[in-house]
């Protein structure tokens, strides 16, 4: 019977697939990223970022400089910047629309509200003034200043309020081009603080005090878009890049300043902050349990199907 032959072929194939899945499963979803690590880019560019959480938000305005491979897209750079700031990574919907940065907004994606939209607007500041971008962030320019502002809600065109900080590449990314070492103070923030302390509820932003104490205990398994080779099994990557201790003392004062939402404080982000991120509860157990049930069902179906073929 040809059907018998088919089944004989299908069983080893299914076993092979199962074994492969079982081998990859413990390493987590990042198991396949070794490819990416091997192909890491050599040339780096410094990209200036201004991320404005909108009027009345506890987070205020974040600005900072991030070094990424020159082949990265604006989204990769944003992910790197957000990771550097210690926020949870940006999320996208199935169409590729950016839904949230740092867990803001907590739900919905581009929701319409009275003819306007609750969304993250994208701006180019490379020329020194903010220009609304109606296309996505797919490429990086030289001396690039990337702006993101949360509209809650706002029009989906150039009349929307731009990010609340001057797009000055030279001041955000200093000439030394060493964003990782020299904490620069701009605006109202006196200290290199990534996440102002007032924000506790909005997905992943830690309280100021918690940031200082939990700094060394960072065990976030999630790597940002450009965090090359960071896997779930090596949480040390974030811990080792956060060596400074001077920043901790100033966290408290920055938090108290940021508590007043009326005056949007501009916080300069440097890599020296090892703030904790919201670690997603990513467990393989449900996957294994579900997979086992599926395999049982499939095997049962196969056995029944064959038995009924034989029965007269």
């Amino acid at each position, binding site marked *: 019977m040809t059907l018998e032959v088919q089944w004989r072929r299908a069983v080893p194939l299914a076993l092979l697939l199962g074994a492969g899945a079982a081998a990859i499963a413990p390493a*987590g*979803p*990042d198991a*396949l*990223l070794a*490819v*990416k690590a091997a*192909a890491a880019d050599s040339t780096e560019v410094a990209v200036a970022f201004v991320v404005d959480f909108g009027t009345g938000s506890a987070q205020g305005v974040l600005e900072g400089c991030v070094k990424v491979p020159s082949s990265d*897209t604006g*989204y*990769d750079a944003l*992910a790197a910047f957000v990771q550097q700031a210690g926020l*949870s*990574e*940006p*999320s*996208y919907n*199935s*169409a*590729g629309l950016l*839904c949230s940065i740092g867990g803001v907004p907590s*739900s919905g994606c581009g929701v319409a509200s009275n003819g306007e939209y609750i969304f993250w607007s994208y701006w180019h500041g490379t020329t020194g003034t903010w220009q609304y971008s109606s*296309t*996505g962030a*797919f490429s990086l320019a030289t001396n690039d200043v990337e702006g993101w502002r949360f509209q809650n809600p706002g029009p989906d065109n150039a009349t929307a309020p731009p990010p609340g900080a001057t797009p000055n590449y030279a001041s955000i990314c200093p000439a030394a081009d060493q964003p990782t070492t020299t904490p620069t103070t701009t605006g109202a923030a006196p200290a290199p603080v990534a996440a102002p302390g007032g924000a506790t509820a909005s997905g992943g932003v830690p309280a100021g005090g918690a940031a200082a104490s939990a700094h060394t205990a960072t065990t976030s398994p*999630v*790597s940002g*878009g450009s965090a090359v080779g960071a896997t779930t099994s090596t949480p040390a990557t974030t811990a080792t890049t956060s060596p400074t201790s001077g920043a901790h003392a100033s966290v408290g004062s920055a938090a108290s300043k940021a508590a007043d939402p009326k005056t949007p404080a501009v916080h300069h982000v440097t890599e020296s902050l090892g703030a904790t991120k919201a670690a*997603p*509860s*990513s*467990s*393989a157990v*449900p*996957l294994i*349990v*579900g*997979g086992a*049930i*599926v395999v*049982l*069902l*499939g095997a*049962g*179906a*196969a*056995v*029944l*199907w064959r038995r*009924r073929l034989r*029965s007269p």
Partner: protein
Amino acid sequence: MIRAGATTGRRATLHPVAWWLWAAALAVAASRTTNPVLLALLAGVVAFVVAARRSDAPWSRSLVVFFRLGLIVIALRVVLQVVFGNRLPGHVLFTLPEVPLPSWAAGVSIGGPVTAEALLQATVDGMRLAVILLCFGAANSLASPYRLLRCLPAVLYEAGVAVTVALTFAPELVTSIARTREARRLRGRPVRGIAGLHGLAVPVLESALDRSLQLAASMDARGYGRRAGSLTRRRQATAATAVGLLAVVAGVFGVLDQSFAKGVALPVLCIGAVLLGTGMAFGGARSVRTRYRPDRWGVRATVVTASGAVVACAFVAANALGVAGMSLELYPLSFPGLPLAVLAATLVGLLPAVVAPNPLARPVPVSSAPTVGMVPPVASVGPQAGETAA
């Protein structure tokens, strides 16, 4: 063994509409989730029930055909995503050479970086469609298309040919695939792989459509759909049915489409349902026709339908309530969860594998009944022979 039909001497079968409702409910459930584990579970439930309760009719292999079709859908979806799809940011797995496009074509891309997120998204989207196709295949495997035709409401007899073709095309397709492959094998032609596919498609499609049309024509020739009575009333009923059907389609689309205004969709759906019901009631009221051995809606049919309804309700409710684990989390990339209540409800869908009568169970006196749909009349048919039904 279950022998529901043992007293009448024919093989036990479930009401075909019950199978269709069960399969449709599972398809609705599949449309409400993007969790690959839940989708795979639904597929497993469907496969198990079909394996346990299919008959030996030629169309009972429909599931295999639709399973393959589903695999093709997934592969196609992934390939389209890799080549043309949204460049979802995230963990880049590999980069295809990119074709530069002018600025007015922003949003469209050919080639470029392919991320794990984009591949997962495409696979799960494909899986969802594949599971819905599998449910359709299951309904075709389990329910006899001829028995289903007999359950049609009288008002649809007007559209006899269209309805017959619509209901019997898939089973005829499966039957004709088997027949064409057999013919090619006898002639020594390849039946597997690409070579087997070549030269299979046209004869299969042609003969499947031919056979469906032939069935429709022969039913028409025997007076199917003819009726006496007032022409005006009939036209009114038909018009009400047609408008009602259109409204129902628009309403269902509105309810399923997340971006559609809910305030419009539900009233349209209700109005459509009322119109449809009225049309069917008036259209069917005046027709007097008999049915040979009508299918009975028994307790088993109710249980099978209810088990499907439990699955569908669980998925719809969990999706509406935003239960964690109903959708695949891409940002951050993490393992899918498995909501226990939904898992339990999914397993309720297995009930038909036990409850539904086994069509292959030995009927008591009849020895050589060939297929379920065409059981030859038996001398001692009992109380059902000659019974009439509207």
